[in-house]
């Protein structure tokens, strides 16, 4: 097990820069997610760590050792591919045993080498030694695939194939486990189960894991820390709660969860509150201190409260018109127009409540502590 450190990593593909100034410090045993829209460079970063791409400049250290000169087959990074990349001509057992065969191949003399090669081409001809058998059976039991060991991988369901890929990577006891969008080929229900499975295995084995995804929900629910990437750069690194409550840029605010982003100008700073003009008359007060004058106010949909007949007192109130109402089960989402700004509000839905009419007026309030200025 080891830490992973990237320093000033840069990657060009025939003159086009796809990665620049990537600095990451991933701790031992950490579950780390690389999150970003497609084409942001997250997969390239992972492929640089695995050694399938050579960085144009910068260093990569795994467990404190510089691996830049190591070929991909010497880096000991277990990788789970997006397509799983299982060997279609081998059964589950042979797939999982592949890396153990390779290790066997490296330490033996020519005669034994021939035997191992034969076993890799047809495992019926040369028997596996006891240690390999034990190891493979253990890991298969761990991912609950013992009953399927001698099936071809094409006979398995998507979730089972995923677990074979995981077992195949884990059995080599890698320093880091790399996972490239491992859940994207599964249906929604299975994806939720696999999230828990992967998280459980990671916690039990305490294995450093880097996980590439474009799905913020996936990243938030599984990772210890997340790096948000865009256009080949890292925008912010932090824990899920950190990213959600303190996004550094409007992009992150919108990409990690949903946000109302309202541009405006600072008109006053007093009593620890910053007042921002966002419309002709409409002002908004925020607890954020800033020296900029042109700012964007970020408000999460669930932090906006619908003010009813009862007199709740808010520093910030808006009046607007409901454009859409979307019923989502436990919540109702309203799209509201306030002085030319479109806002999204989430309200909890309790059975028996009426959903407000589209086109009707609505009054909203938000605490200054819940308004973030960027």
């Amino acid at each position, binding site marked *: 097990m080891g830490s992973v450190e990237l320093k000033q990593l840069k990657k060009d593909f025939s003159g086009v820069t796809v990665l620049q100034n990537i600095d990451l410090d991933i701790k031992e045993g950490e579950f780390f997610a690389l999150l970003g829209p497609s084409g942001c460079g997250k997969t390239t970063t992972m492929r640089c760590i695995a050694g*399938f791409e050579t960085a144009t400049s910068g260093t990569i250290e795994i467990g404190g050792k510089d691996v830049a000169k190591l070929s991909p*087959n010497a880096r000991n990074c*277990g990788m789970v*591919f997006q397509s799983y*990349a299982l060997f279609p001509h081998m059964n589950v057992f042979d797939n999982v045993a592949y*890396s153990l065969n*390779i290790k066997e191949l490296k330490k033996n003399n020519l005669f034994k080498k021939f035997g191992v090669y034969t076993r890799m081409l047809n495992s019926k001809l040369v028997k596996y030694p006891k240690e390999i058998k034990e190891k493979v059976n253990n890991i298969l039991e761990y991912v609950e695939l013992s009953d399927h060991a001698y099936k071809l991988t094409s006979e398995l369901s998507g979730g089972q194939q995923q677990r074979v890929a995981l077992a195949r990577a884990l059995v*080599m006891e890698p320093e880091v486990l790399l996972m490239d969008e491992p859940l994207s080929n599964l249906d929604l229900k299975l994806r939720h189960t696999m999230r828990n499975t992967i998280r459980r295995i990671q916690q039990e084995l305490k294995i450093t894991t880097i996980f590439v995804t474009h799905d913020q929900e996936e990243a938030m629910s599984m990772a210890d820390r997340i790096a948000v990437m865009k256009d080949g750069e890292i925008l912010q690194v932090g824990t899920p709660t950190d990213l959600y409550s303190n996004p550094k840029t409007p992009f992150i605010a919108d990409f990690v969860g949903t946000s109302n982003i309202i541009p405006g100008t600072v008109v006053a700073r007093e009593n620890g509150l910053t007042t921002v003009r966002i419309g002709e008359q409409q002002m908004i007060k925020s607890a954020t201190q800033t020296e900029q004058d042109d700012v964007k106010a970020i408000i999460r949909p669930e932090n906006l409260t619908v003010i009813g007949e009862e007199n709740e007192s808010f520093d910030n109130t808006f009046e607007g018109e409901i454009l859409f109402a979307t019923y989502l089960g436990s919540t109702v989402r309203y799209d509201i127009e306030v002085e030319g700004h479109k806002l999204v509000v989430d309200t909890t839905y309790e059975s028996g409540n009426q959903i407000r009419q589209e086109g009707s007026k609505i009054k909203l309030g938000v605490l200054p502590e819940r308004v973030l200025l960027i």
Partner: protein
Amino acid sequence: MRGLINKINGLGFVKFLIYGFFILFLIIPLLSVFLVSFTNEPINLFGSLVSVDQFQRTVEQFKNATLENYKSIFSYGHYFTGLKNSLYLSFIVSILVLLLCMPIAYGIARTKMPFKKTISALCTIPLIFPTFISAYAFIIMFGRAGWVTYIYQQLGGEGMLIDPYSMTGIALVQVFFFFPYALWPMVAAFKVSDVSLEEASRNMGSKGWLTFSTVTFPLALPGMLSTALVIFAVSFSDFGTPIILAPSDLNLIVVDAYREIAGFFNWGSAAILTVIMIAVAGFVYWLQNFLLKGRNYDTLSGKPKQVKLNENKALTVPLSIFSWFVVIIPLLTLATVFVQSIAKTWGLEPLPTGYTLDHYRTIFSSSLGNIQNSLLLAGGALVLSVVVASFVSYFVVRHRSTGLDFMTTVPLIVPGIAFGIALIQTFNTAPLHLTGTAFILIVAYSIRRLPYMVRSTVGTMRAIKQDIEEAAINLGASTLTAAITIIGPLMLPGIAAGSVLVFITVIKETSISVLMAPPDWAPMSLAIFQNVLRAEYYSAAAMSVILVAMVLVLQGLASLLSNRNKT
């Protein structure tokens, strides 16, 4: 420096070797035959590299280079007539094949004609024959003492129904034995041409014949023209038929080229004829690609649509009868060769006077060597092309090597006789004196048939995703180990399919064998050819039956293999 050495790893070295192979045995021979067409005498390019004397001599030869040959082609009637006759022959053959195939292809693709399955199966028979065997079988059938001639005369005809030793004879053999090359692409064209368009036409009130002539036929037309060009090229480079059937007063360019080299060692003329043959074949190939540009039938066949098959008896019965007439002729040819092989004597009678297995006994006592040679040579060519094709497809698919892709299409264009002449010319003297060895023969066979192999292996290689290979490397395997344990086994079906094809075509190969095989390495095709020339028809027939049987067994094996892969 160390970086450079690191870059030239094992795989890079293999790529270098393969380029070397193609340059040495394909590019340089073609180049030097082109040069000889100017210098009029053999040049020694390899010798010029190792010896100063030779180099000066070669320079001297270039100084004396002229355009005389090119002028004489167009002024001196002989070769010009040869070219004209060959083009005329190929043109007639491709038109006839097109007309012959259109009804059969339509019948197979779009109707429920009676005996459709049997007819489809019989349509593959012509492909198992080397053309010179079918040519000489035509002599047994239509010749002066042939049984067809006998029946024709009994019915009151004068002389022969068709003189096999004529342009007509050659054209007929080629038509009846090359038509399957056009049939299957045409069936495919009829099957994929968009059925919904036809339905639209019918929906607008158009009926049967009108729909066929205004929608179905125009849609299938580009496909048909390109198949006609395939036939043109096959007929133009066919050597087996004309060498047996062309009478002495009929010049054809392939035969001329063969005679110039095998009879007179006239390098200049052979070279110019070779250049012309390659130019014509190259032009036809270019034209064909030009026609097919932007039309990809494969993408259409991805979603097979249910076609309503025509059941109208008034159409299907005549179609079936016509198809039977076409397939029965190769079948009769096969039967004739077989009867001849077990006949005591056969001539001027409808049936032989008696039957015997003596001819087979003779073969197995005296000509076993030829069978053995055929197997060894085909086996050698097979191994060589498997190795080369596997690596070529790896480089073409993974490294997008357009250079190698191009090199493997060149042999498709070069007619066998032309390639043979180029090789003989280049490797005729020291330092690389290879002409007359089994080695150069194997190299020639495998290069000539490499396109088939590469097409098959590139297909399978494309189906193997890059990340499967990466997964193996990620698990600790070296590139070579990954190639052996993962890529190799996954490519096996493609290699097997290509191998059978290479083996069959090498056993059937005529032009290269006749031109290049040394006496102690004579394969079956050469032995049959010589027997026919010596008019030893009975042993030729017996040997032909053995050859055809071998091809049939191999083809059965191939379809067995491909069926097993499908399930």
